[in-house]
Structure formats: structure tokens, C-alpha cells
């Protein structure tokens, strides 16, 4: 690999050292360390929640760090806005660029800083010429005069890159740019990235795809749990080594897995398909069993759960609950038949934040609580009392609005709300996202106990240790398909991570 290296001695283009960022009680970034050299492409990898996005947002000026050092070309900086970050020569290209669809490509590139000619008029000729010149340098053919609407995402990213070049950005950050691109488009993007490197710019490439990291990058930094793990030249490492660094921790101790007796099939999903979202999903969950559904964010796991529960539709396939087919698209029937879904987004889907603890816990059982069609606050409070105390929700009053509780306690309220329906099958989607370690352990213990009592649990989680620690069986999804199934014994972090990230074609 022909790596363009800057002469040693020059300070790195960008340097972050032990950067910390927390949001209230949640620490998103414990110790972020990253060094980008000019004329080099650097990869940043890590599991979901490892702190990559937080790090990027600090560099982009969206967040302000709580502690740690941040230098650009040797000079300490402290951005309070994205404008400052841009002015300092940093450009971030996101997965899905936000351009003005009704304006031309050229106008988008120069938005807000159009070169002016005589009498303050916009100098369209100069603007157009520069746009054409940049596209020429990048070796791409996009008509600078066409309107942006209808351009592919790949072309839109190129426009963002052109914008960065016209600003003479020294540091370009690409946050999972290839997620929505086809093979040819990826190749073109890589060619552009290499030509930028050869111009002496520093590039940061965030990706979940190892093949791309190895094909494009010069160095790689791994993050885990909000902390820096290692930085290695790409030629000195392997996929296995990187996966170990990404996962690397002892999982069995954290997760108290109780032995449960497995019973009948409670939930059987056969060939579930929704065009463009998920394809041919088949699995079963038995009584007493915890089935983990692993994969990266965006693999289609939540969509499958929502389709089974009935809040979304599916095109073909079948769901059998407790031995009888479950009609699609009807959450009320699903609930009545003993299915419960703790959704992914507790603030939007799981809770009515402005309503009280009591009302939230009893929202899904409001029918069952009523006598002769009437429901009283007394009945609601009595039921809320039972579930809040069983889950040890920390709130002083049952009429406190749920939005005032901490994330962990909110999650307990959602769990209580669904356990109150006395389900036979429980789907939990990211049951411990964004909650503190102590509460996490409580939730895990609870799920384990419930399985022991005979509940069938499907647990969707992007946290590998959680899946491996809790599940009797692990299913892995990638890009809408199940790409792996492992027994508890066979489910190693490496195997699961590989199934979640590697190209299915390459596996075969």
C-alpha cells in the first residue's frame, strides 16, 4: 500500500487526547483519543455505543467536551459551534447528506458564501468554473448546473466532499459513508478519498465493514465502551485482532444467567418478509428461553419485532403465537393473545412522558382494570403499586410524570407496563439502552427470572456482551436477513460480530 506520509516532526492534523463527555448521569465518552495525520486515511471502528459518534460530534462542534485535550495542527481548540469547526478546516460528511433539493449542484456547494462580482452580484461564472474544476480534480462527472433533487446518495456525498474541498478543509470525517452505497459507488468514493489523501489532507473513515477498512485505510483506531483501545497501522493487524479489541471483555460475570427449563414453542416466525426492510426471517422462541437477536443498528431487527407485534405490516410469511396463527397488523389481538413488545424508543414509543407513572403502567391493561366498563384512579394506583414495587422503580409518588424519572426508571416503568399484561411471549428491544450500569444489572436479573418462570423472551440488543451473557440462543441479522444462529456455547463475540458485519457472500 502506497502510504503518503508527512515528514516526521510536523504536528498531527488533529489530535484528541483523553476527551470526556457525559450527558447528565450517562457517560458517552470516557476517554476519547484519536490522532489524524495529514496525507493519511484513518479508520475508526467500534460497537454501537462505543463512543464514535460522540467523538465525531465533538470534533464537528456539535458537542463541547467536558475534559481532555483537542488540538488542530498543534494548536489547542475549543469549538462552541459547528461554524467554528468548519472555519477551522474540518468537514464532516454524514451518511445521508442534507442538501437543498431545489437548488443546483453549484449553488449547493457555495451555499452561504457565493463569490460576488460587480455591484455585489453573485458571480455565477466563477462559481460554476470552480465547481467544475473540483469535480475534475476528483475525477467524477456530475453536471454542476443540474438541480440536486434526484441525485443518488453517492452523488450527494460527492457534493458534500466538493463543498469541503472548496472550503479547503484539512480534515475530512466520513461517518459511515458507504452504508447506503452500491459496490461501484463505493469504489468511486474510495478513489476520491485516495486523491484527497494524496493532496495531503487528513481523512477519518468510520465504518462497520472490515473489508472496506482494510481496502482503504492506513491506520485504524478501535474504541470500546466510550474509551480508546488501540491504534494500529492497518498492515500490522487482522480482522480477528480488531474484533477482539472491539469486544474484549469477560461477559459471563456481568450477566447472572439462571438456568431455565425450556418448554413448548411459544412464538414461531416463518419466512417473514417485508420488501426492502427484512427478508425471509424464520425463528422460534420456546417457553423459558431467551433468544438474543444481535446485529448492528439498521439491520432490520426492530422492524421485524414491530411487524410481529402488529404495529407495522409485512408482505409475506407467518407468525404463530402459542400454536395459533396471529393475524397481521393488529396489536390489540397480539396483546390479547399474550404478546408484549417493549419498544426500542422508550420516550417516543414506550411511554407517555407527560402522563403519570400510574397511567403509564396501566395504559396497556386499561381494559382489564375496568369493572362494568368503568376505570378508577384507585384501581390504577393499586396495579401501579404492584408493578412499581416489583421492579423497584425509584419514584416518590405514583402521580409523578414519567418524564421526570431517570432513564433507567423510565425503562422499568415500560417493563412494568408490559409485564402487567401477563404476557406469554415478551419481545424486548434494546432493554438497557442509555441506562446506568446498576439498573442494567437489575433489568438483566429480571429478564432471567422471568424466563425461569416460563416466559419466552426475544431480546433485541446491539450490545454484544448483553446478548452473549443473557441468551440461550443467538440470532444475528445483517441488512434485513438472518446471517447466523449460534447456541449459547458457540456464540463467541468474534463469531457473532463476524456474522453481523462481514459480507454474507464472503462467508459462503
Amino acid at each position: 500500500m502506497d502510504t503518503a506520509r508527512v515528514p516526521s516532526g510536523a504536528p498531527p492534523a488533529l489530535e484528541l487526547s483523553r476527551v470526556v463527555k457525559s450527558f447528565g448521569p450517562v457517560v458517552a465518552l470516557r476517554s476519547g483519543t484519536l490522532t489524524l495525520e495529514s496525507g493519511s486515511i484513518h479508520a475508526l471502528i467500534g460497537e454501537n455505543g462505543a463512543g464514535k459518534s460522540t467523538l465525531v460530534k465533538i470534533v464537528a462542534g456539535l458537542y463541547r467536551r467536558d475534559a481532555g485535550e483537542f488540538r488542530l495542527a498543534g494548536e489547542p481548540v475549543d469549538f462552541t459551534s459547528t461554524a467554528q469547526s468548519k472555519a477551522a478546516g474540518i468537514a464532516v460528511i454524514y451518511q445521508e447528506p442534507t442538501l437543498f433539493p431545489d437548488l443546483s449542484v453549484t449553488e449547493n456547494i457555495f451555499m452561504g458564501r457565493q463569490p460576488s462580482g460587480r455591484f455585489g452580484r453573485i458571480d455565477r461564472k466563477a462559481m460554476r468554473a470552480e465547481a467544475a474544476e473540483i469535480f475534475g480534480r476528483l475525477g467524477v462527472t456530475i453536471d454542476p448546473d443540474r438541480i440536486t433533487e434526484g441525485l443518488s446518495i453517492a452523488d450527494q456525498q460527492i457534493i458534500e466532499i466538493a463543498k469541503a474541498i472548496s472550503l479547503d478543509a484539512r480534515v475530512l470525517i466520513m461517518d459511515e459513508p458507504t452504508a447506503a452505497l452500491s459496490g461501484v459507488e463505493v469504489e468511486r468514493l474510495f478513489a476520491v478519498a485516495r486523491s484527497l489523501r494524496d493532496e495531503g489532507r487528513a481523512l477519518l473513515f468510520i465504518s462497520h465493514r472490515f473489508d472496506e477498512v482494510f481496502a482503504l485505510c492506513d491506520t485504524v483506531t478501535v474504541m470500546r465502551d466510550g474509551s480508546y483501545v488501540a491504534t494500529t497501522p492497518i498492515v500490522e493487524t487482522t480482522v480477528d485482532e480488531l474484533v477482539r479489541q472491539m469486544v474484549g471483555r469477560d461477559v459471563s460475570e456481568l450477566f447472572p444467567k439462571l438456568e431455565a427449563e425450556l418448554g413448548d414453542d411459544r412464538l414461531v416466525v416463518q419466512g417473514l418478509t417485508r420488501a426492502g426492510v427484512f427478508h425471509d426471517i424464520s425463528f422460534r422462541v420456546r417457553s423459558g428461553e431467551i433468544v438474543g437477536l444481535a446485529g448492528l443498528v439498521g439491520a432490520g431487527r426492530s422492524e421485524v419485532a414491530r411487524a410481529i407485534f402488529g404495529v407495522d405490516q409485512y408482505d409475506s410469511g407467518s407468525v404463530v403465537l402459542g400454536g395459533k396463527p396471529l393475524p397481521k397488523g393488529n396489536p390489540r389481538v397480539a396483546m390479547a393473545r399474550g404478546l408484549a413488545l417493549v419498544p426500542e424508543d422508550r420516550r417516543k414509543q414506550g411511554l407517555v412522558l407527560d402522563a403519570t407513572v400510574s397511567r403509564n403502567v396501566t395504559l396497556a391493561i386499561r381494559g382489564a382494570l375496568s369493572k362494568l366498563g368503568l376505570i378508577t384512579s384507585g384501581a390504577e394506583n393499586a396495579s401501579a403499586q404492584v408493578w412499581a414495587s416489583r421492579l423497584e422503580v425509584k419514584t416518590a409518588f405514583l402521580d409523578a410524570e414519567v418524564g421526570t424519572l431517570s432513564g433507567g426508571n423510565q425503562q422499568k416503568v415500560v417493563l412494568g407496563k408490559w409485564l402487567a399484561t401477563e404476557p406469554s411471549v415478551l419481545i424486548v428491544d434494546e432493554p438497557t439502552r442509555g441506562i446506568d450500569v446498576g439498573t442494567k444489572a437489575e433489568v438483566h436479573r429480571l429478564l432471567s427470572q422471568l424466563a425461569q418462570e416460563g416466559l419466552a423472551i426475544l431480546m433485541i440488543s446491539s450490545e454484544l456482551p448483553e446478548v452473549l451473557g443473557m441468551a440461550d440462543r443467538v440470532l444475528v441479522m445483517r441488512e434485513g436477513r438472518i446471517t447466523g444462529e449460534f447456541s449459547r456455547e458457540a456464540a463467541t463475540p468474534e463469531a457473532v460480530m463476524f456474522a453481523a458485519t462481514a459480507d454474507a457472500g464472503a462467508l459462503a
Partner: protein
Amino acid sequence: MTTAPAPVRTYRAHAHPLWRRALVNREAAVIGLLLIVIAVSLAVVPNFDSPLTVTYLLRDLAPILLIALPMTLIIITEEIDLSVASIVGLSSVMTGVLTQAGWPFAAAALTAILVGSLAGVINGFLVTVVGLPSLAVTIGTLALFRGIAVGLLGTTAITDFPEFWTDLARDNIPGTPIPLVMILFLVLAVGFAVLLHFTPFGRSLYAIGLNREAASFSGVDVGRAKFTLFVLSGTVSGLAGVYFTLVYSNARGDNATGMELQVIAAVLLGGVSIFGGRGALHGVIAGVLLIGTLSSALRLANVGSDIINVITGLLLVLSVVSASFLGWLRTQRLAALGRRKSTQRSVS
């Protein structure tokens, strides 16, 4: 591993004692203001204490009171029905035309009410099945229903109705200055209050208004609930149209023009949030009575109608401002609480 039995915690149901919950809220404030207005008017406004004042006041307020009931439920689900006054007009015209055509009055009235229901079905269909915003839909049907009403009867009016029925609409409960129609209202008000405050359906309406997505994840059929409300709104408006026709012996296409705004103003004044999810029926009833009593007292005190409009308008603006001010105050308090919590945590 062994798990210790979870300590059973007892939670207090309420942060504040009953008297405070009952007295420190928007509904109580509106009721209090209503009592003050009544007391002051009794003291200083000549003739305010005459039985006729009470009779005429309640007679005029009855259609607004009736329509405010379903309107409250609709606004709690974060929707709105602007077509109610046009449905009153349409129902009034139907009553007149059918009576004139020789139908027995009861049949004509029932048909008029059903036409109101049908109007509600149209609104509900467009909002829940087609998925259009209710604001746009009911602005459209406001014009549509009014257009049909005026078209059916032109500029003429039908004024001949069976005396039995007009008397029923105008008579008072024997021995009181209170019109008989208030009994009908009371029955409906209790029905709507039970529906809103003591049924699973009512619980789901608040959930829809506060977080539609979470409601549907909890098994609430959002579309069916809203459809039901629009049909109820149309039906009650149809009923109000029949009453309107009888009490004034007058079926005209332009009856009750603009009443939708009076209804909505009173509902908002009564403490229902225009953003959905908050409000109670007793507050709304007090809101209707407050606006009605205030303008009646001012009229008796010989205040000009434009000044009355200015005063009721100001009252509304103040009520909305005070509501958002209180909301702002609450978020400030919560934010301060959150800050205190997080500093405590980082210290420990």
C-alpha cells in the same frame, strides 16, 4: 446465585394532598373566576338577578354547552372540529324543510340529527381513513355543510313548528328559571364526563393526545377512537341544531354562524390544551358559563357589544398566556431539579 426477595416498597399515590389537588388547578381557577363574576354581577349589575336573565342566558348557551362536550374530547386527542356550527345550520334547515314537507316533527328532528351524524362520519372518514389533518378537513366541511344548508333553503326561513315542541324547548323546569333543555345537557354532560374520565376509552384519548405513537404501541386503535369522536361531535351538533330551530322558531341556512369559535374559545378557556392530552370536562363547562355570564352581565350593564368582544377576547388571550407561562415555570423547576440531581450524583 441467590436473589434476595425484593423489598416491597409502598409508594404514595399523590405528591399533594387532596385539597391541594382539588383547588390548585386550572379547572378550579376557572370555576373560581366564574363565581367571582357571578357575585360581582349580582352586586352591581341591575336586573342580573332576575329569573329572566338566567333563563335567557342558559337558553342561549345551551347549544354551545352541548357542542363543547364532544369538542373537549376531540381537542384532547389533538384534533379539532371547525364544522360544528355548519352542522347546526344544516340540521336546522333539515328540520325546517322536512317539517314543511309534512313529516311528523319527531321524524324530521331525528333525521336532522342523523344528518349531523353523517356529517361527522364524513369528517371522521377524511381524518382517520384518508389521513388528512382535521384542521384542513373541517375548514373544508365548514364551508361545504354551510353551503348545502344555505342552498337547500335559500334566504328564506321556516318559522312554523308544532307548538308542543317549541314549548318544550322554551319551558323551564317547573318552579325554576332553568330551561328544560338543561336536563338534556346534564344527562349528556354526565355521560361525556364518565366516558372521558372513567372509562378505558377516555384513558386512551389522553394517551393519544400526549403521544399518539406510544398510544398505538399500547394497543390503542387511534383511528377508531378519533372516528368515534367526530361522529359524536356531528350527532351532538345535529341535536343542537334541532334545539336551535325550536327555541327561536326559526330554520335558516345561516343559523349559528361562527358558533364553532365560541365553542372552541370556551373549551380552551376551560383548561383544555390545544396541543392535546390535558383538560377536564368540568373546567370546560365552567369556561362556557364564564364567557356567557360575563357577556350577559356586561350587556345588562349597557356595555357595547364591541367592548364585550374585546373583554372576552382579552380573557382568552390571558388564559392561553397564563397556561403557557405556568408550563414554562414547570419546565424551569424540573430543569433545576434535574441539575441538582446530576450534581448530587457526580459528587457521590
